[in-house]
């Protein structure tokens, strides 16, 4: 390779790396630094007013009942939401993979549409559906003689309502990944199994699921990160209420940083979230490795 050609690859990846550096890597380091300061709106205009306060932000953070509540809420979101997304998207992908008729194609679209629909539009419609007094859900329940459910008015039920909404919205993309993975399983495996006289359940257990392990790993990692950063749904639907029951860590960071201008404090919270995500992801990679071995 001569000197000129050595630069060619850089020209291709250069723009992407530059964007990544400026808009992702650099901000991470900036927020790392400011999480040890008391920077607020004054500090933004006048850098002399910024003081290094060591670990004070972090100490305050873990004494802040709202932050602890948001940690707990995020945990609930992850523990319920992630398995639900994986199981649902896997089942739907399996069902949709049964045939290729027009009907199945239509349903692929039906399941995918929520992923590409604007969250604000979704929030408006679901807000009406969930309305305790005039919503469709309670109207239907009332028809069957069930008492009205306080979908968004009770701290714990509101969490579940948001999870339901997010699962519905998040199905599409994961279903697509599973569908692609399903279609890449060589047919010869199933033919061999047929010759051996395996039934449907055995084929699922010994061929399909193991063949999808990489897709499952990918979906788990990305879904978990996504759910730890759960933000849009509580932001547009409940604003963290009622009684902070739907406050997620990402929403906490947003409110402290951009509503109350406590940039240092918010940066400290985002660092905690960052570390949490890294740890959880590392754990998954370790497990995945030991599985393979």
């Amino acid at each position, binding site marked *: 390779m001569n000197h000129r050609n050595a630069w060619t690859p850089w020209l291709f990846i250069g723009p992407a790396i530059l964007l990544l550096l400026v808009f992702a890597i650099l901000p991470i380091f900036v927020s790392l630094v400011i999480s040890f300061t008391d920077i607020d709106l004054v500090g933004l205009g006048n850098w002399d007013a910024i003081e290094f306060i060591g670990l004070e932000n972090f100490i305050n953070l873990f004494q802040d009942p709202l932050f602890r509540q948001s940690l707990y809420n995020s945990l609930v979101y992850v523990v319920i939401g992630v398995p639900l997304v994986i199981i649902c998207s896997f089942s739907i992908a399996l069902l949709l993979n049964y045939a290729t008729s027009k009907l199945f194609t239509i349903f692929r679209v039906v399941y995918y549409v929520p992923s590409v629909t604007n969250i604000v539009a979704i929030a408006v419609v679901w807000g009406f559906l969930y309305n*305790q007094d005039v919503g469709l859900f309670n109207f239907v329940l009332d028809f069957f003689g069930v008492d009205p459910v306080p979908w968004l008015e009770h701290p714990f039920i509101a969490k579940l309502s948001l999870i339901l909404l997010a699962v519905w919205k998040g199905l599409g993309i994961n279903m697509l990944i599973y569908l692609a993975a399903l279609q890449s399983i060589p047919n010869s495996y199933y033919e061999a199994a047929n010759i051996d006289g395996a039934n449907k359940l055995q084929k699922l257990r010994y061929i399909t699921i193991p063949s999808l392990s990489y897709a499952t790993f990918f979906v788990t990692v990305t879904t978990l990160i996504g759910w730890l950063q759960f*933000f849009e749904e509580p932001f547009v639907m409940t604003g963290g209420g009622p009684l902070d029951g739907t406050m997620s860590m990402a929403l906490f960071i947003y409110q402290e940083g951009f509503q109350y201008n406590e940039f240092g404090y918010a940066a400290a919270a985002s660092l905690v979230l960052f570390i949490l995500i890294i740890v959880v992801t590392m754990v998954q990679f370790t497990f995945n490795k030991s599985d393979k071995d």
Partner: protein
Amino acid sequence: MKKSIGLVSVVGFALALTACSSNDAGDDSANGSTNTNDSENKSDEVVSLTVWAMGEEGEALHSFGESFEDEHPNIELDVQAIPWDNAHDNLLTAVASGEGPDVVQLGTTWVAEFSEAGAFLDLSDYTDDFDMIGNDDFFEAALDTTEVEDQILGVPWYVDTRVLFYRSDILAEHGYESAPTNWEELKEISHTLNDRGDDMYGFDIDQNDQLVPSIFAWQNGWEYDVEAGAENFAEDSFREAMEYYHSFFDEELVQESEGVPIEQGFEEGTKPMFMSGPWMVNIINNTTEGIDGDWEVAVLPGQEKNASAIGGSHLSVFAHTDHVEESLEFLSFMSEPDTQTAWFEETNALPARQSAWDNEVLAEDEKLAVFGDQLEEAVAPPVIPEWENVAQELLSSLERVNRGNAEVDEEMDNFQQNAERRLN
């Protein structure tokens, strides 16, 4: 769920936006200087004045500004309409980069927050040349929100305030010929109307409205003393007002859950009384049917006084502007009583200047007159940067009382501690 990317791109976009705005200003002044050769002007150069106006104001100011340009041929307005949702972020970016507009529209509650960062020019040095600065023809409460620690950081532009909206027909049916004027009457009428049936309510309180608890407190004679800090929240007048606020939930006079939109409840008569601002007049007129003439507005019922909160917008000069003189010319123009009346006709925004209310357009409208009366008793929220945080803490505490069954007194002690932390 790609939040981090979303957030980053928002910041990036805001940066790009400010970059554009400063470029635009440069280009325009370059174009402007060639134009001056054709037309006769006092100065050699046409100055391009960048104005940030939010929401609907931004749209309306485009065409409205032409009359200003006719009067001042040496100034060219470059109005940039910024959606309210982005306004706070854009201002943050402008402060951080020092690159911003010349004149900016500013919500009254943002003054303290941004002034602390030195975002705006102190106008008190220019009072000799421009008599609109600190002019006492503006509503007193509106002026209050432009002043922070001896600095004058803006000129009131338009105002709004909360009044009582009520269904006069329903009240009359139950023997009340006029709106409640004090707390007792409000309570009594609420009870009577609440007793109409299961899904009927007496009153309505928007639990997400930061201003409502303060309005009750002001009505009870409470005043916020900046020096005293969180001690303000220990006062009896404040605690009593919070008890009063809570009693509406305790006695189930208001709906605790989300329910139907207020204009619908108002139309159906299930929520026959509520507090809101001037924007609600149009909403009711446009979205409801068959209740024309069956509803009225009235000055809020009070205890010590019939207080309400004042809101609205100011116009401020950005600290880093190169065109102080021209910016002040524009502020002066926008605050003239005639301009204010014309602006009202264009946008329905209430004039901040009291003499503009003498104009027949405003004086002859009965509903508007109520807003005028209410404005005279309106109080400005404390002009301190932490107010938004404190008010939000208060709402959370009240929510714990109303929904979480916490004791009012205990929870208010709790709130006082949180406020203490926020204020430090």
